[in-house]
Structures are given as structure tokens and as C-alpha cells.
């Protein structure tokens, strides 16, 4: 037993209703799919990964390796003090033995020159050590920087890969959403068409005894 007897109003009216049911179902399914895809698209957009700046500031990783260089004044001061003590002792000896003032002056000059030479030598050594430390530090900093850049390139690569995949999914979902919208619109048109066809028979309804026309 089909719906015609249940609905009544004539076979063509029942057929019109039945014809529109399929279109209604399609419209509803398309609307439902559209809603689902819209929800999915919103979620994909809302949960996209944060943008990594591939040119982010790396200055915090760089330090001046020469900042730690010190001037070897301590050694020079010590040498000068030692030379002064030595000179004073020698002068005391000269005074005690009755040496001339000119000899004392020459001795003092020689002692001073000697002190300067020793001091300069120590400074050179210290400077060489500092240079080595600075060069080592610079190498370390260069290595850190290269590592930082390498890690950053990796992050940028991973980002691009994920971005590409997410974009593909976003594009795909958006495309499906467009298709669902079109399907919904088409199904609604079909539904309207079926009902309009049935309405063509409403003259039939009006003419049907018991409907718009009083029963005879």
C-alpha cells in the first residue's frame, strides 16, 4: 500500500508529494554536509599552527669574543715595583761604596730599561693567550650560530611541510563545502519543481468533490 491512499487528494497530488520527498532528502543531506564541512573548516582554520618567523632575531646568540680581553697592567706594575726596589737597593750600595752620581744615573736607566723589557715580554705572552682564547670563543660562537641557523631552517622546513598539508586540507574542505552548497541549491530547486508540478493539479484539488468544491 503506497502513500497515495493515505495522502488522498488524487493520485497526481500524492505523486507530486512523493516526487518532492526525494529532493527534500537530498537538500537536507546536502545542508547537513555543508554544516559539517563548515564546522570542520572553522576548526582547521582556528587550529592552524603559529607562524614561525624564519628571520627571527639571533643577536642574543652572538657575543663579542674580544670583550673579555684584559690589559696585562698587573704584571707591568709588579715589574716596575720590583725594579724600583732593586734600584733603591743598588743606589744604597753605591752610596755606601762612594760611587759617582753619574754611575748611579746610568744604573737607574739600565735597570728601568730592563724592567720595561721583562714587562713587555709578559704582556706579549698574555696577549697571545688572550688572542687564542678569543679565537676559540669566536669559533664556538660561529658554531652556535650555524647550529641555530640549521635548527631554524629545519623548523621552517617542517612549518612549510605542515602548512602545505594544512592548506591542502583547508582547500579540499572548502572545495567540498562549495560542492555541498551547490548540491543543496540544486536539490531545493528540484523540490520546488516537484511541488510546482503537483500544484498544477491543484485545479484538480479544487475540482475534487469535498475539497474546494462543496460535495454534491
Amino acid at each position, binding site marked *: *500500500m*503506497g*502513500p497515495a*491512499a*493515505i*495522502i*488522498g*487528494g488524487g493520485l497526481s*497530488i500524492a505523486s*507530486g*508529494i*512523493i516526487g*518532492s*520527498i526525494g529532493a*527534500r*532528502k537530498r537538500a*537536507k543531506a546536502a*545542508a*547537513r554536509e555543508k*554544516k*559539517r*564541512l*563548515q*564546522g*570542520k573548516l*572553522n*576548526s*582547521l582554520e582556528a*587550529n592552524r599552527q603559529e607562524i614561525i618567523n624564519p628571520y627571527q632575531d639571533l643577536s642574543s646568540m652572538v657575543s663579542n669574543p674580544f670583550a673579555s680581553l684584559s690589559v696585562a697592567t698587573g704584571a707591568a706594575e709588579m715589574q716596575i715595583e720590583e725594579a724600583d726596589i732593586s734600584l733603591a737597593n743598588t743606589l744604597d750600595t753605591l752610596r755606601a761604596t762612594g760611587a759617582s752620581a753619574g754611575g748611579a744615573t746610568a744604573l737607574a736607566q739600565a735597570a728601568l730599561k730592563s724592567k720595561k723589557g721583562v714587562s713587555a715580554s709578559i704582556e706579549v705572552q698574555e696577549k697571545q693567550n688572550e688572542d687564542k682564547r678569543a679565537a676559540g670563543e669566536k669559533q664556538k660562537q660561529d658554531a652556535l650560530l650555524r647550529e641555530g641557523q640549521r635548527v631554524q631552517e629545519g623548523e621552517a622546513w617542517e612549518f612549510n611541510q605542515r602548512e602545505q*598539508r594544512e592548506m591542502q*586540507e583547508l582547500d*579540499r*574542505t572548502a572545495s567540498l563545502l562549495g560542492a555541498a552548497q551547490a548540491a543543496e541549491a540544486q536539490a531545493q530547486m528540484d*523540490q520546488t519543481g*516537484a*511541488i510546482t508540478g*503537483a*500544484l498544477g493539479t*491543484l485545479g484538480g*484539488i*479544487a475540482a*475534487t468533490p*469535498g*475539497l*474546494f*468544491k*462543496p*460535495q454534491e
Partner: protein
Amino acid sequence: MENKNVSQNLYLKQFNQSDAIAYSKQFVANANDYNFQLLDNAYRNAGKAYAQIKIAIETNKCESEHCAAELAQIKQLKEAPQASLDFLSSLVAELSVTEESSFDPNNNYKYTVANSLMNGRPGFSKTDGYNAYLDLLPDGSQQIVFMGPAFKTTIEDPFTFEILEVDNPLIINSSALKALIDSETSLVVSTPDISADMVRLLTEIGTFSSDMIGEDGNLKPNATISEEFMLKNLDGSFDYKIVDLGNGKGKNVLQFDMNKIEKKVTPFISAEVAGLMSSEQDAVAAWNVYISKHTSEDEDEQMLQFAIGENFSWIYETDLPLSQDKKVLFESKYKQYFMDNYLKQFITNQMPTVKEDAAVFDLEEAKKAKAQKFLDDNNLN
């Protein structure tokens, strides 16, 4: 507590699918009247009413000022047939959901009865005590009323304390139904096609390379998960699991980095669930039929789960809108369902991709070699 909707819907499903009624002598011997004639009865007096109002307007005998009320009534009557067609076709389309193979029996069983009646199923005729009316209401809306044995309820007589069975018709109003449909919700919830969703999801989660996806958009029959998700040794060779084939023989199968796979899959599952949650009633249906029971798309298995009373169903009337706890639980179980029923086949007993590693070998020797390799790799010799 027994869920009346579940028991009634399962009974109706069985009743409609079986030919049990064909063996009823009483049914076979009697004529069955299915002529509910909804439109004929609804419009029986419409013609007369239309004529009376029209005459009143034309002869200037209206009861309202400037015939405003009469003109409105005429307009309603003219629009009524179109509204009836829309209403009935919407209603039948909604009720037809009760016939879907994965229909959630937690839906109101009265809609299943109404659908049986609208389709003239045996056992739901006038002769069986059923009836249906379409009424044109003064406010311009229309209503359909279903009555019969399935639309009754019991009450206690306040004087005699007897238990009485009284009519409890199912009434559906056209404007209420239209409002539901316009807001993209449903009278009867159609269960989402979880199987199709999950097959599609397999291609979206990023664990398969694009060359594993066929032109139809689905995974190819020989699809394998990308190499980056396979477990490897320190030297880059595959870290196989050895499977005992019996008779001292064994073979290698691939092992997968499940943490990495889960991390990859989770955002796509979340997006999928967000899509489902845009219509929470759909999520409830998916939960009731598939996710909570861990059933497959096998219809018989689903119905068996309901029938044996293992019921963790969410109830449409009380559980909507879904609480945050339920949403979290849904996503967690959805992921588990996907991993167990769809992804598992790609991570279980997968043969090596390297041809020479796929050969059957002597089990003892292989186990020794594997142990030695572990010692070598970790400098434990």
C-alpha cells in the same frame, strides 16, 4: 531502566522486516482499510467555507471592518493546499529516516509508527485501530494527528485508582516542523555515515603519502603508511618485529612509531569531530550507534548490541545540548574507534618494504642476530 524507545524501535524494525504478519490468519482473512485520505478529509469543508467568505466579501456582509479578517481567511485558504503539500512532503521525508539501516533506536519510536502508517505497512491500517488526520488551523498552520494502539498511554484514575489506557496522539504542527527544518535540525536524527567519514579521513591525516591515494580519492588497496612513521635502528635499518610462523621459522613485520602517528592524526580527528559537533544530534546518533559500543558498520551487530541491553546511549531529550565532558569523551572515543577499526589494518602484520627482509628465516638465528645487533648498536659487547 529499560529504554522504551530502544525496545519499541527494535520490535518495529523486526516486525516490518519480517513477514510474520503474513502468517496471521486474522490479518489475511480480513480487508484492511488504509484510506486515511488526509487531504480529502482536511479540505472537505474548505470549499464551502471559501464560498461563504467570498460571498460575504462580494455582498459587503463582512463581520470585520473593511473585510480585513475575511480577506485574511481567503488568503489562508488559497495558500493552504501549497502549505499542505510542503508539510506532508517534509513530514514523510523526516519520517523516512526511521527506515535507514543505521537508524538510532533511541529516537522517539512514535515516529517509526507514524512512518509505518504513512507508508501503509501491514499492521498499521484503520482496521488495526490506527488513524491520521490533517487539520487546517485558524492561525494558518496545519497539524497532523496520529492515533492508534501505539499512541496510547496509561494513567491512574484519580477516583477508582484503576490503571486506564488513554489516547496519547502524536501531533506534529507544520510551522513547528518548518522551524526545525529551517534551523537545519531534525524531527528524527539520521545517523552519520561514520564508515564513509573514516575511510575519507584515512586519506587526510598525513600518514600516507599522496601516491598512496587513488583517483577516486580513496586509499589504494596496497597503500602503506609512510616510511617516516616506521621504527628504525640507530643505523637507519628497519626495526622489525619477528613473528613466529611455527616449525622454527619466522618472518619480519614492520613496527610503527605509534606516538608519532597519534601526534600526526590528532589535529585531523579534532577537525572531523568539530564538523560532527556542528550538529550535536548527529554526534549523539553516531555515539549511540557506533562510537560508544565500538561496533562496526555491520547493522546486525549494532542491533544486537542494543538488544542485549548493553546500553550506554545518550538520550536526545536530556543530553542535548552536550556537556563539555561528553564532547571530550566523544573525541577521545572517536579517535580510539578510528585507530582500532580503520588505521589498525595498516600497522598490523605489515610486510617489510625491503625485499630481502621479507623472506622467511630460521627463527633462532634471527633472534640471536637481533640480540647481537642490539649489543653492537649500544656498545654493550
